C-alpha cells in the first residue's frame, strides 16, 4: 500500500538538494563560525550566505535576520523580547484568538507578568477585522502580533492592512509567517512588519532551525544568555548545517513559486470539490479563496475526528485533526471555537495539507477511501442514527 502524506502544514520531507547542501557542514566543514582559523571562516561564510538569502526572501537586510531553533522560539522571542524591552512604554499587547500556541502561551505567560493582552476575534472564515484591531489599540499598546496565515484552517490575514494600522499608531508589529512562507510573497516593508517568524521544516528544510526577522531599531530582549553570536541577540553556537539547509530550502522555493502554488491550488481544489460532492453533512472551514494553496480543512458532522484519522492512517493516508502540536491530545481546536463552531462539531475536523510530492492519483485515492470511512463511522454514531430517523420520518 502506497502511503500518502497529507500533513505538510505539520512538517515537510526534506528536499534532497537541501540534504546535499547540508552534508559538508555535518562532515568536513565542522568549524565553529566564531573561531579564527580558515575552517571556521568556511562555516561563517556559509551562515552569512544563508542570511543574505533569507533577507532577500522577505525584503530585509541581512543584519536584521536572527537564526533560531525554529518557529516556536522565534514567536517566543518576538513576544517576550519585545514586551520586556519595551515595558517602559506600556504593558498592553494585541494578538488574536487563533494564533499558534507558541504565541498564545507566551502571551498568557506575559499576562502573569502583569501585561494585559487583547485577543482579537475572527469572523466565520477565520479572518481578523481591521476595525477590530483599530478599536483594540490603547495608549499603552506596545506590540501587535497577528499570524500571516493560519496553520489549521489556512485562512490568510489582511496583513498589509493590519500592518498599516500598526504603523499609523507607531506600534511594533509581529507576524508569524511560518505557514505562509513559500506560498505567499513576503515583503516586510510592503506589509509594515517589524518582526517575522519563519521555520525551515515547513519549507522542505531541516527541523530545528528558524528565523526571527527584527527590523533595525526595534528593541528586543534576549531569551538566552551566554555568547555574542547573532549580533549578541541569540547566543549559542550556530546550527551551521541547519542554517545552510534553510538557505537552500528558501533558494529552492523561491524558484517557480507561482508555478508551484498554481499546481497545489489545482490539487487542493480537486480534493475540496471531490469531498464536498461525495460526502454530505460536510463543511469546508476557512476562507473559500483567501486560504493557503495546499490547505483543505473539513468538518464531518456526526464524526469524531480521532477515529477518522486512525482509519485513514490504517489506509496509509496521513492527515491531521488540526494542528500536530495538539493532536494526540485532541482537545477541540481553539481556532474552530474562535470561528464560532460549536464544541461538538469542532471534534470532527480533518485537515489535509498538500505538498510538492502529491499527485492527482493521491487525491483520487483519498476520494476513494474517505467516503466509506466516513460512512462507517457515521453508521456507528448514535447522533447520526437519530438524525437519519428524524429525516426519514
Amino acid at each position, binding site marked *: 500500500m502506497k502511503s500518502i502524506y497529507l500533513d505538510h502544514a505539520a512538517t515537510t520531507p526534506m528536499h534532497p538538494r537541501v540534504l546535499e547542501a547540508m552534508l559538508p557542514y555535518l562532515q568536513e566543514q565542522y568549524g565553529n563560525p566564531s573561531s579564527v582559523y580558515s575552517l571556521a571562516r568556511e562555516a561563517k561564510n556559509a551562515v552569512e550566505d544563508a542570511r543574505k538569502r533569507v533577507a532577500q526572501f522577505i525584503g530585509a537586510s541581512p543584519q536584521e535576520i536572527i537564526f533560531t531553533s525554529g518557529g516556536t522560539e522565534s514567536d517566543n522571542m518576538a513576544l517576550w523580547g519585545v514586551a520586556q524591552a519595551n515595558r517602559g512604554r506600556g504593558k498592553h499587547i494585541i494578538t488574536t484568538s487563533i494564533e499558534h500556541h507558541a504565541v498564545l502561551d507566551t502571551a498568557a505567560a506575559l499576562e502573569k507578568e502583569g501585561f494585559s493582552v487583547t485577543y482579537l476575534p475572527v469572523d466565520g472564515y477565520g479572518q481578523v477585522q481591521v476595525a477590530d484591531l483599530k478599536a483594540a489599540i490603547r495608549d499603552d499598546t506596545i506590540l501587535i502580533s497577528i499570524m500571516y496565515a493560519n496553520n489549521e484552517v489556512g485562512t490568510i490575514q489582511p496583513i498589509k492592512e493590519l500592518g498599516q494600522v500598526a504603523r499609523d499608531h507607531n506600534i511594533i508589529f509581529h507576524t508569524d509567517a511560518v505557514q505562509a512562507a513559500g506560498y505567499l510573497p513576503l515583503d516586510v516593508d510592503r506589509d509594515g512588519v517589524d518582526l517575522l517568524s519563519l521555520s525551515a521544516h515547513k519549507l522542505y528544510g531541516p527541523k530545528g532551525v528558524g528565523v526571527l526577522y527584527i527590523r533595525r531599531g526595534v528593541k528586543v530582549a534576549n531569551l538566552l544568555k551566554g555568547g555574542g553570536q547573532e549580533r549578541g541577540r541569540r547566543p549559542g553556537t550556530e546550527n551551521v548545517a541547519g542554517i545552510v539547509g534553510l538557505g537552500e530550502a528558501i533558494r529552492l522555493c523561491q524558484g517557480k513559486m507561482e508555478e508551484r502554488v498554481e499546481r497545489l491550488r489545482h490539487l487542493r481544489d480537486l480534493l475540496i470539490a471531490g469531498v464536498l460532492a461525495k460526502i454530505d453533512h460536510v463543511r469546508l472551514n476557512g476562507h473559500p479563496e483567501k486560504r493557503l494553496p495546499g490547505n483543505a480543512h473539513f468538518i464531518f458532522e456526526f464524526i*469524531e475526528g*480521532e*477515529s477518522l484519522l*486512525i*482509519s485513514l*492512517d*490504517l489506509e496509509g493516508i496521513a492527515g491531521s485533526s488540526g494542528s500536530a502540536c495538539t493532536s*494526540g*491530545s*485532541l*482537545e477541540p481546536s481553539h481556532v474552530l471555537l474562535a470561528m464560532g463552531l460549536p464544541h461538538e462539531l469542532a471534534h470532527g475536523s480533518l485537515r489535509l495539507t498538500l505538498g510538492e510530492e502529491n499527485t492527482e492519483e493521491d487525491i483520487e485515492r483519498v476520494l476513494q477511501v474517505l467516503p466509506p470511512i466516513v460512512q*462507517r*463511522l457515521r453508521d*456507528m454514531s448514535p447522533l447520526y442514527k437519530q438524525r437519519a430517523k428524524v429525516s426519514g420520518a
Partner: protein
Amino acid sequence: MAMSGGVDSSVTAALLLEQGYEVIGMTMQIWPSGEGSGQDGDGRTCCSLSAVDDARQVAAKLGIPYYVTNLREVFRKKVIDYFKDEYARGRTPNPCIACNHYIKFSALLDRALALGANYLATGHYAQVSYSPSRGRYLLRKGLDPQKDQSYALYGLNQRQLSHALFPLGELSKDETRAIAHRWGLGVAAKPDSQEICFIPDNDYRGFLRREIPAKIQPGPFLDVEGNILGTHSGLPYYTIGQRRGLGLVAAEALYVVDIDVERNAVVVGGRDKLWRRELVAENLNFIAIPSLAGPLEVTAMTRYNSPETGARVSPLPQGRALISFAEPVRAPTPGQAVVFYQGDLLLGGGIIKETR
C-alpha cells in the same frame, strides 16, 4: 488491543500476533489536560504518559500500528466522579470495575469497532467463550488462579463479552513467560501495577482532600453501643476492616466495623464485630444466566483476590439480591462488588449495599 506498556498487555499483543490476528495497539488517554507532562507522577500507573511511551515502544517492537485515544471526558465522569461520590457516601468504590464496564468495554470498544476491528483484547486474566447450549457468552476465571481477574469483569454484558478477547487467561505462567522471552518483552515492558491509576502518588486520602473537601467533616467515633470514643477526621478516610490510623486507645484492638453516613459517625469494634452472615447486593449483572429466577447455591467473592465463601443468592424486590453465607465473612464492604461463581464459571455479581 488495549496496551498499557506493561508486561501483561504486551504479551497479549504478541500472543495475538502469533495466533494470526491483525493487531492494532491503543492506549487510553485518561488524564485531565494540564501543563504538559509535569503531573506524570512516578509513571507506574496504567495510562500515564510514560505508559504511552512504553506502549509505543512495545508496539514498534511488535511491528503493529499504535494509537493513543482520548477518553478523558468519559473517564472523568464515569470513573473519577463515581470514585469521589462513593467515598462521599461513606462507601468504598472499585474504580477498576467501573473502568472495565464504562471505559474499556464501552468507549474504547466503540473506538475499536469504529476502526473496523472485530474485538477488543485486553491483558486481563479471565476466559471468555460462547456456549451454544446456553446461547450465552460465558466468563471463567483465568487458568492461573493466583492472577485471576474475572472479579473485576463481572459487570460486562453479553454484547461487551461478544467483542472481548482475553488471551492471557488461557495461558499458564510458563507459557506467558515463554512468549515474553520469545519477543524480548521481559526487558522492554515494565511490571504491571495495582494502584489507582488516576492517583499516581497512591495517596487517595490526599486526592479526596483536594477534590471533595466539603464532604470531609470530622465526626464521632462510636462503639457498637453508641458511646462516643473520640473524633474521626472525615468518613472518606475510613474503610471497613481498617485498624491502623484510628488513633483510639482501647483494651482490645479496634477496627472500623461500620460507617454511618446519617450520623457522620465511624463505628468501631473488636475483631469479632467484623464478621457478617448476610449482605444485600444491588446493580446486579448476570453473565452465565439471563437473570436470577430463584435461589442459587454459589461461592461468593466479596473483595478482589480474597477467598470465596459458600453462599446462597436469593432474589429480592427492586432488582436486589440477598446473599446468605454458609459461614461468616470478614468485613464485606458497601461499594465493593460481590461476585458469584460455580467452580471457575462466573455467574454474575453486584455491588454490596448493606451487610448484617
